């Protein structure tokens, strides 16, 4: 295989306790740390390992989002991606639109394998990978926890409700990754310096021939119902007593 494309989304860092704005128009983002979606970091790590094994020649990191998403792409370049492309688009983008944008890039770049996250931890949609694969009319393997390259075929182990499922897919194809696929490397300072010189192109969504259609409109944001803090019991006997009284055991 020659080229791998990795989709890298800019999201609120997974350590941040996300809060809904009091006016219900979104979540608080002011002064909040932004990062690469954790699944996408794993996707990128996998692409880099494939390349380092000599099974791919180039790794291209792509993102769809605001100008600031260049920061996440720079991090991707520092991790080891060869170059990056930002498709500029502000605001929330429907996964169907994201999939169309990535399809355009995959075709333009003659990509052999698209690696992306099984879900973005902001919208928790888990849609983009399968949508891209469908529009491309190519195979998909979602929630990958192991990936083996055998020439033009991938053998992918997937985390499913029943346990582990193994599928074989022909390239080109789309693989969405799960958390146990690998542990991403840390970025070192010299790599950050080197990344500044790597190419990062910025293009418009429209230039890819994709319309920023708003398929789904969010009309309200609400905080979830809070669970009431319960009681502390002093020992196992008191716990069993309480559960028995409520008829739970």
């Amino acid at each position: 295989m020659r080229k791998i494309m990795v989709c890298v989304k800019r999201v609120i860092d997974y350590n941040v306790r996300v809060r809904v704005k009091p006016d219900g128009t979104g979540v608080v983002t002011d002064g909040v740390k932004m990062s690469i979606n954790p699944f996408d970091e794993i996707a990128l790590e996998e692409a880099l390992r494939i390349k380092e094994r000599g099974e791919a020649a180039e790794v291209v990191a792509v993102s769809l989002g605001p100008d600031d998403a260049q920061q996440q792409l720079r991090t991707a370049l520092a991790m080891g991606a060869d170059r990056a492309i930002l498709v500029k688009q502000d605001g929330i983008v429907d996964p169907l639109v994201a999939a169309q944008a990535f399809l355009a890039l995959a075709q333009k770049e003659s990509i052999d394998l698209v690696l992306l996250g099984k879900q973005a931890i902001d919208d928790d949609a888990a849609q983009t990978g399968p949508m891209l694969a469908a529009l491309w009319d190519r195979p998909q393997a979602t929630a990958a926890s192991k990936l083996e390259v055998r020439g033009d075929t991938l053998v992918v182990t997937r985390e499913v409700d029943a346990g582990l499922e193994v599928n074989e897919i022909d390239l080109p194809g789309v693989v969405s990754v799960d958390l146990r696929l690998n542990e991403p490397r840390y970025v070192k300072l010299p790599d950050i310096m080197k990344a500044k010189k790597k190419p990062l192109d910025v293009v418009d969504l429209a230039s890819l021939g994709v319309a920023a259609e708003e398929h789904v409109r969010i009309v309200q944001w609400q905080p979830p119902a809070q669970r009431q803090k319960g009681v502390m019991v002093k020992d196992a006997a008191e716990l069993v007593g309480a559960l028995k009284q409520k008829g739970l055991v």
Partner: protein
Amino acid sequence: MNKVLIVAEHAGGRLNPSTPKCVTCARGIPDAEITVLVLADDGAAIAGEAARIQGVARVIRVDDPANAHPLAAVLAPQVAALAAGSSHVFGPSTTFGRDLMPRVAALLKAPQLSEVMQVEAVNRFRRPVYAGNALVTVELPVGRQVVCTVRVASFEAAGTAASPAPVESAAPGAVLPRHTRFVSVSAPSGDRPDLQTAARVVSGGRALGSAEKFGMIYRLADKLGAAVGASRAAVDAGYAPNELQVGQTGKIIAPGLYIAVGISGAIQHVTGIKDAQTIVAINKDPEAPIFEIADYGLVGDLFSILPELESLL
């Protein structure tokens, strides 16, 4: 009339309990006519089960050897072909539905809503985002076809119908790809209750320290007739298999009783159990965040508490 097509999930010739839950969600759509679609190699028994779910108007059965294993790339074109004319296409938010439904949506050029937890109107739904830290109400243009995955933890299973709905056979005539092949799936894990539908769940975390000691969780679960769950840390460390992971990226569950043992209560874990009726937390750290959401908290060393619990139950 709103036509809702529900893609049935099944394994080993049995309908998965997620399907009657999708039916309950679909019944929330006003004036809904509900069709269940069974794609299998031999779907006779499964279709028969689906026909007896209360609220189902008819069942469509597509038998094809290619449907022996649920490969999204193979199933999606068949679903899309049969979904023409449906206003809503539903599937469960299990790994089956998460894999398949977005592929269907893209073929239909329809938007998808993931993890629908409530139907507010024919074109208005509620769903969680940010690991359940926010709930959004979303609206689609009236008349726009939509694909949804149904958050199974948010719905009770629909009951049994007095008389079964008619079952029709169909041949969608879609061209099925050969670029995706099934190789294997791990064998079902014994006869313990299923994590996603169990009334009681006992989960263990990193604190268990080894696969061997994780056996204590199984013992307590067996005593309670409960299913076993695990935190991501416990799965990552190899104490428990991946299919037991509870949370944002594992299974989202709503049992009557959830007992978290040696689990800190990270937001990604808590998001998977928030709908449990009663949560019990056992942790040696009184400051552990799990206590903020627990109905009953017990501070102490699990290695002495679990044997005590076992002997008291």
